[in-house]
């Protein structure tokens, strides 16, 4: 379990002073003070402590989940450049969009403008990263905290629908009651309840954070994060009345009650966030650099939150993949570079790790539009504090006979990736086990060993990474499909 975190203390309203005007005064002083001291992380922590009462102790792991939506083409992201047998199959399947150039000259720089199929960036003589990812490739070599988990996916239903695939990944499950909560939400239910900003989505409401008792907050931008009111008489009174609509325990009918509870959370979250100094945005609102800078601001301020979710879309590259993938990976590279520039060298750098994944990979062969269609197996990237760099899992075979409808077949259950992350967050495999549930055979999910340190020890009995031996790839389970009905209806 993470160290205990005190719940935030809401400032009381003094006589003759509204709660909101009191907060504005405190927040303004803190923000000005922090800015004057160049946003020193120690100062930020002190400011946070003074402002909202609770801080996340240094040494507590923090996850920033980055979702690449649309189905990132992992084969053109982590490229088999010198892998016996695999490289030949890769190139023959992709005569028009396969990446054929390599560089080993470090440090790697950004690709030449206009070159949408730039030279790949060598990692280990066999595998290379797309040329638009120099930040990750340099970090692989220079820092050694980049881990590539190959072959991640699922062999339960082998779904190739964006929406079902995400539903499974957000839930960390394939049916039943677990579908109503998210894999991170269930962890927070056990480890992080009672926090005003205990779970943060940087990309709107997020189902991975859906929980029973640990509500999540969506923050698009810290600037303007709060209820707005211009030109109304008695503005403070007005804003207090907006807050008064909210009732965290509302039992009002249907969505009136839901709205009342949401208004209460929105009011409380704005109160807490008001004291958080803003770090450099690094990009326009909604961009990945901007999302991650918001996460960095909250992390450096010591907000008691272990789970952040960010998103980068546009990976559904059915057509014109060279340009589209280059453009998306360029933003991913920029976002990561900016984020770690705000973290590296600070006391929390060793705590914070980023997990990057997508709903599935894409088919091996290219289509008529210089693109690729939906596939199955993908890959997952860990980077940051505590990560032991290297390749994990097993790259799926590209042999035609080993593909399923031209898609690579998963060798590592994505839920083992989750178990690895949760073990790091909570430091307790039993907590992970409780949050995740078991696989279709009743077995817990294994830790992949990505992190240094003790969390990997003491795994629940029977835990194993699916397919880690390269042989025991479980068969598809179409019989489970019947359990999807509640999800499908719930999405309408």
């Amino acid at each position: 379990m993470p160290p205990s975190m005190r719940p935030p203390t809401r400032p009381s309203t003094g006589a003759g002073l509204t709660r909101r005007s009191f907060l504005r005064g405190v927040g303004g002083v803190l923000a000005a003070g922090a800015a004057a001291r160049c946003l020193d992380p120690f100062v930020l922590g002190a400011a946070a402590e003074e402002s909202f009462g609770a801080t996340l102790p240094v040494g507590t792991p923090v996850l920033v989940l980055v979702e690449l939506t649309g189905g990132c083409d992992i084969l053109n992201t982590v490229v088999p450049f010198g892998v016996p047998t695999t490289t030949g199959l890769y190139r023959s399947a992709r005569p028009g969009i396969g990446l054929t150039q390599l560089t080993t000259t470090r440090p790697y720089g950004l690709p030449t403008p206009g070159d949408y199929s730039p030279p790949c960036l060598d990692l280990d003589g066999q595998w290379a990263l797309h040329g638009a990812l120099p930040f990750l490739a340099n970090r692989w070599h220079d820092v050694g905290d980049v881990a590539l988990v190959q072959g991640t996916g699922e062999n339960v239903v082998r779904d190739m629908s964006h929406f079902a695939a995400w539903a499974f990944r957000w839930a960390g499950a394939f049916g039943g009651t677990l579908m109503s909560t998210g894999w991170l939400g269930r962890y927070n239910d056990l480890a992080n309840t009672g926090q005003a900003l205990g779970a943060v989505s940087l990309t709107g409401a997020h189902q991975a954070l859906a929980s029973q008792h640990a509500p999540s907050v969506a923050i698009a931008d810290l600037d303007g994060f709060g209820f707005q009111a211009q030109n109304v008489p008695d503005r403070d009174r007005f804003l207090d009345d907006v807050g008064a609509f909210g009732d965290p325990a509302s039992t009002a009918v249907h969505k009136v009650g839901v709205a009342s509870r949401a208004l209460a959370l929105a009011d409380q979250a704005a109160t807490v966030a008001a004291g958080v100094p803003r770090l450099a945005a690094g990009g326009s609102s909604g961009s990945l650099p901007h999302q991650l800078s918001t996460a960095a601001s909250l992390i450096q301020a010591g907000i008691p939150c272990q789970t952040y979710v960010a998103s980068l879309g546009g990976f559904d590259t059915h057509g014109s993949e060279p340009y589209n993938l280059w453009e998306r990976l360029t933003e991913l590279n920029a976002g990561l570079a900016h984020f770690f520039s705000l973290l590296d060298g600070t006391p929390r750098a060793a705590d914070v790790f980023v997990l990057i994944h997508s709903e599935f990979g894409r088919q091996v062969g290219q289509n008529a539009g210089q693109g690729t269609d939906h596939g199955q197996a993908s890959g997952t990237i860990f980077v940051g504090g505590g990560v032991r760099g290297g390749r994990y899992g097993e790259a799926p075979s590209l042999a035609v006979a080993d593909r399923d409808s031209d898609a690579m077949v998963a060798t590592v259950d994505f839920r083992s990736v989750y178990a690895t992350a949760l073990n790091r967050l909570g430091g307790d495999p039993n907590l992970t086990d409780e949050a995740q549930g078991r696989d279709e055979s009743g077995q817990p999910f294994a830790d992949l060993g990505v992190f240094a340190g003790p969390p990997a020890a003491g795994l629940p009995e029977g835990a194993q990474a699916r397919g880690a031996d390269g042989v025991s790839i479980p068969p598809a389970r179409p019989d489970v499909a019947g359990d999807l009905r509640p999800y499908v209806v719930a999405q309408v």
Partner: protein
Amino acid sequence: MASLEAQVAHIWRRLGFGPTRKDINAGKGMGTAALVDSLFRRPRVDFAAAGFPPASAGEDAHAGRQLELMAFGPTATGSGTLSPAYNPFQERVTWILQGLVVVGIADSVYVADLRDHVKHLRGALGATYRSLLRTVVTRPGMVKYLTADRNTKDHPNQNLGRELLELFSLGRVDPKTGAANYTQQDVIEVSRALSGWRYDWGDGSTWFDPSQWDGGNKTFLGAPRGAAGLDEVMAAIVAHPSWRRHVPARLYKELTGLDATPAVLDALAPSWGADGNLKRLLKAIVKRPEFLSDQCLLNKTKTPVERVVAAARLLGWPGLATDVNLPWLMTRMAQDPWSPPNVSGWPKGDQWLNTTNLHSWSDVANLMALRGFRWDGAATGPVNPMVTKVHTRATPATAAAFVCKQAGLTPVSPRTLDTLHDYATAGSWTPARAAGLLNLVLLSPEFLAN
């Protein structure tokens, strides 16, 4: 059992975009059944009469015009007066279909393409869902949005084939039995059948190129289909058991907020039929007893579009097509009507009650309600008609109940009434305070529900 007033307001929220006080009074006079019939019978507003700007006017102008049509109808002046040509039910159905058969502005999809798509959706009540689907999958918007113009016999592109089955017609699994409706091989075979459609970048039209069509034999959805093309795909789809369940279940959820049980799906299937009779199905849904029951009232969440349109109708706010800030504000609320996030449409339900979205809505509601006022409460331009009405016809003591009645909010919790009363009585009763009170109503839990 909800009051007649609550039921009338519910009908207007679900079949339109919210009532005005005049609508409620009229509905109470005619009764719920007659009100439903009158909404179904309103004359269809043809695309030509809808008043969309030229395609060259751009996305924002088109989206703004659509919001105006939802709120006031084609001859709207922003006065809040119900236009004789106003057809809220047609606008509601069009909007539902925009979230079901999805095309959005993206990459090579231009305003003219989406304009054409919306034109077909607007006519759906006079056609069948089968014919609508058959048409739009070959139109420029869909062809480009789902890269169907890059689907050739040598290298099939599965984008359109997959979404046609998953999102537009059958669904992944049958809503009644839970059985998988199709396999990946079905997607491949259907995609082969849909190959050959091309887009002419010169004149912006689509055409069928037989030389790029895969004329080989195909097997999909459980049977050999010979040298199948689009028509054979549509025939196989409408013969599939889920044809009578998937889209009806979605439309049932849209109108009632409830998940359709197997019994409900069986009951609705004859109304839908082999061709997908939209109007008949929707009427069958609305005529079911649960539609006006307590089970359904306020069991949905307003989307940003629904908030803005309902607020415009309440306030008589005229800026839907003209306010330069609205497109930016809609984007900030993550629901630009002509730019859905992906082919499955916009988020649904409680996701719209996330913190950032509520904060953003407070900004939009403030812009709308405080129209014409400056920082010191002085009016510097035209104010919304409802502001004047509230200021002149209510007192501080009666204002809270008065504004709720104007907004059709019933029932209202004591907490909400007390909060509104607190603000109404906190200072001098001025037009600006009346505007602030209306602003506050737009942020109440009762308004956010639908």
